[in-house]
């Protein structure tokens, strides 16, 4: 029971949630206004909460005694299975909001679909996460509309962010043999079935925001097999430092 598809799948969900949660936490103390500082903190904690539940479950599936901390703090970048989109740098405020929009527009219907999983634990975790992602989506959508349809500068920055992040959206809908097997077993949610929903959500926001949807060109891929952008190593060096330097430290 080590590297089963269910373990892999749960780990992917957990890694994506943790890395995006960490990214959002980087805004704390740096946001343009205190209200948004709290919003980032709240959303970051939602995501880290999701990752904790998923890591704990992944550890149980694996059955080797690894707990949430072991999975989060003691694996190297090559063992991480998160989507490349969520490890991209925060950039400016527009960049973070567009990344949040692109991910939440996927994660919300994805977790909703996962509530119908035959795996009861995944279904239960998904039920909680879907509510959280619904708010993330609304928040990011409202901001994207205001930034895109705001000043010339905010429009330009938001469009640039969209253009930069677009090559990472293809990976959202990838299905590899691991996931295919679980979809057929009724355990995993099929991301390809969510494409139309995602397109509609994103297109509506972009239209309101007077932004131009980028053309689908070359799409980045590799998060599912541990081939990450250079950014993940930097994230982990900060996120894992304490447990690496002082193994088992608690406070």
């Amino acid at each position, binding site marked *: 029971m080590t590297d089963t598809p269910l373990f892999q799948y749960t780990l992917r969900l957990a890694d994506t949630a943790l890395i995006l949660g960490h990214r959002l936490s980087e805004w704390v103390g740096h946001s343009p206004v205190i209200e948004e500082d709290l*919003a980032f903190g709240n959303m970051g904690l939602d995501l880290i909460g999701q990752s904790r539940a998923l890591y704990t479950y992944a550890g149980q599936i694996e059955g080797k005694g690894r707990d949430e901390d072991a999975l989060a703090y003691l694996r190297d970048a090559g063992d991480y299975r998160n989507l490349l989109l969520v490890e991209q740098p925060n950039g400016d405020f527009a960049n973070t909001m567009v990344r949040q929009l692109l991910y939440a527009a996927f994660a919300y219907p994805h977790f909703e679909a996962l509530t119908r999983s035959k795996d009861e634990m995944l279904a239960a975790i998904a039920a909680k996460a879907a509510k959280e992602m619904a708010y993330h989506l609304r928040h990011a959508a409202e901001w994207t509309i205001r930034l895109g349809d705001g000043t010339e500068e905010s429009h330009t920055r938001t469009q640039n962010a969209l253009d930069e992040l677009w090559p990472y959206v293809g990976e959202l809908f990838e299905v590899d043999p691991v996931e295919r097997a679980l979809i057929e077993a009724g355990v995993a949610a099929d991301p390809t079935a969510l494409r139309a929903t995602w397109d509609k959500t994103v297109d509506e926001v972009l239209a309101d925001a007077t932004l131009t949807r980028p053309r689908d060109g070359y799409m980045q891929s590799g998060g599912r097999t541990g081939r990450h952008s250079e950014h993940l190593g930097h994230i982990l060096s900060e996120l894992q430092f304490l447990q690496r330097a002082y193994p088992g430290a608690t406070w």
Partner: protein
Amino acid sequence: MSDKNWPLWEVFIRTRNGLAHRHVGSVHAVDATMALHAARDTYTRRGEGLSVWVVPSNAITASDPADKDMMFEPTATKIYRHPTFYEIPDEVGHM
């Protein structure tokens, strides 16, 4: 970021059904929708809320602190308005 301050909004939260909305503080936000988000993120982080109102601060008409003698002092001597002069039989219990 613009140097111009965003408008201020007063936040009211209803904690449980049957209770009234209570003023809890204020937030800055560009418009009503974002004010509602900011209020949710700022004031309902510990499960405080079932319903949130936001009101533009400049929509509130407030009494002038300089008028406080005229406005409020006259009631100080009218203690008979407090319902404290009734004998309540023990059998009534807690009211």
